[in-house]
């Protein structure tokens, strides 16, 4: 192992290769299109949850966890983004893990062999590693979910049970409002960045599960700035959506309830075709460039 420090690959070069690859080989989009379709199907089912025949499946769950009122118009739209986000977690773990693996395999072949492998070939490659991919995606998705649950609960405990009026000179409205939005966003960037190389390591390097997670974290520390930038830039597309979803009740009552569904569709499309696609492909390229630098 060389004791010399490997120079960090250029972000501009990584983005250049990413954009050119996506332009020349639209097949790279396919795994993300399939993910979008899965996401839209789950969204459609959730939108139809208060209606027959879906109410038989979703009715008891919604009634138990959130209450009967969310099975009626227009209150069902207040719950829709939350349900859609939970469903996306499930879709990401079950299908997203496999599809991201496929996308990494396709990009690796474009980069190394200048050719697009067949989707079935990429599928076979990713399927061999499905269990590991599933565990990796489940790990960081659930980590993100539980951290997000813990922070508001901690704040509520501080303000309501502890009967405090302020925290660092600011009231409950700030901490449970804009602060939570910012924390959610920063947490999403951090967790994505820390484990983003796990899938390329599993697919390209045939790493074992724990080794992939650990090396991904080490690589994130080594390539801290380029990785953070490459994860943050696509995630900025989420900002308007996050703000709109924060104003959900206003949109339902002041504009029209169905706008929530439109925003959720837009969110799904943006998430699959822009954010996930750019993030996965560009960080795979960054990893490959880093590997190349290391060898040379």
């Amino acid at each position, binding site marked *: 192992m060389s004791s010399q420090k490997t120079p960090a690959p250029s972000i501009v070069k990584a983005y250049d290769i990413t954009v050119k690859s996506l332009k020349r080989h639209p097949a790279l989009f*396919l795994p993300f*299109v399939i993910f979008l379709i899965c996401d839209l199907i789950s969204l*459609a*089912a959730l939108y*139809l949850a208060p*209606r*027959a*025949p*879906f109410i038989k499946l979703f009715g008891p769950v919604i009634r138990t966890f959130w209450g009967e009122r969310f099975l009626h*118009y227009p209150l069902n739209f207040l719950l829709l983004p939350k349900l859609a986000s939970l469903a996306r977690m499930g879709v990401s773990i079950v299908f997203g893990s496999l599809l991201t693996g496929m996308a990494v395999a396709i990009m690796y072949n474009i980069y190394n062999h200048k050719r697009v492998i067949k989707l079935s070939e990429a599928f076979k490659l990713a399927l061999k590693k499905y269990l590991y991919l599933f565990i990796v995606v489940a790990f960081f998705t659930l980590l993100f979910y539980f951290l997000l649950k813990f922070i508001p609960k901690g704040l509520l405990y501080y303000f309501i049970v502890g009967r405090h009026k302020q925290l660092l000179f600011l009231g409950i409205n700030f901490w449970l409002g804009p602060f939570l939005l910012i924390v959610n966003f920063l947490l999403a960037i951090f967790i994505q960045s820390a484990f983003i190389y796990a899938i390329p390591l599993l697919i390209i390097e045939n790493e074992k599960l724990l080794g992939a997670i650990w090396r991904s974290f080490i690589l994130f520390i080594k390539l801290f700035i380029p990785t953070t930038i490459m994860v943050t830039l696509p995630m900025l597309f989420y900002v308007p959506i996050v703000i709109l979803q924060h104003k959900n009740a206003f949109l339902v009552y002041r504009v029209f309830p169905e706008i929530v569904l439109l925003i959720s569709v837009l969110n799904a499309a943006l998430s699959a075709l822009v954010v996930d696609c750019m993030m996965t492909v560009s960080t795979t390229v960054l990893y490959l460039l880093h590997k190349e630098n290391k060898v040379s």
Partner: protein
Amino acid sequence: MFKSLTAILLISISLLLTGCGEDQYAIERKYWHLQKQAEKIFKNPKVSPPNELIAVVQLFTDFANKRPNSSLAVDAEFTIVRLYLAKENYDSARAKLKRMLDKYSKYKLICSESLFLMGYTYEADKKWDLALEQYRRIMREYPDTRRGIDIPIYIAEYHRTKYQPEKMVAALQEAIVHYRALAIRFPDSPVSFTASILVGECYLALKDWQAAVDTFDNVVNTYKDKAVVDNILFNMAIIYQRELKNGTKAKEVLERLIKEYPKSALAKQATALLGEWSKK
């Protein structure tokens, strides 16, 4: 691949089209959009033109007629009455309410609400005696409905807002008699429990503190095994302390609250209050 994607898309579209018929959800959706139309009139009743009222009333009437078995049909009819009220069209409101009383004569909740609105049309029209007639009818015919229980206090409250203290006192005394009779008429029921508490509330409004705590004490002893009465005990303690200046009795009641409802949120407040009072 393309074929399977097309198949998935077709399945999604057919899923979206499922349930496009008029189920309960579709009725709620339609009604919500109607309410949005009514909101325009409610927001600015004096500015909205008469033909707008006619058009919206027609929409609500059609809605109710097309779906006679929906609970929203009744709501739609009440919205029509409220629209007439907002436009100060009292005669139309009363005519509509009369039709509703005939149509829903078997449903006491709808009838009590209709009678209340009928009374309110007179009240808004500055015809209090006629309004009172309707309110008394609710007390007589539908005493165990929510409106029937609330109305005696509503009458007293009316006199209070009009600065008529003698009439207010008379109304409160009448309410006490009414609630006592109600508690006897519906023994061991939620109506009896609520009526008994309201007797105490009337004494509080009359500033007859001793009668109020005696009534609450009676409620606690009668219902302690059937209902949670921690809030009544807490109120009793406050009355003893602040109004009757009987600190010993107040302390005794709070200690009873802590002993009988140790997990209640009010038990914590009671402990804090006891600490505060002991410092004094």
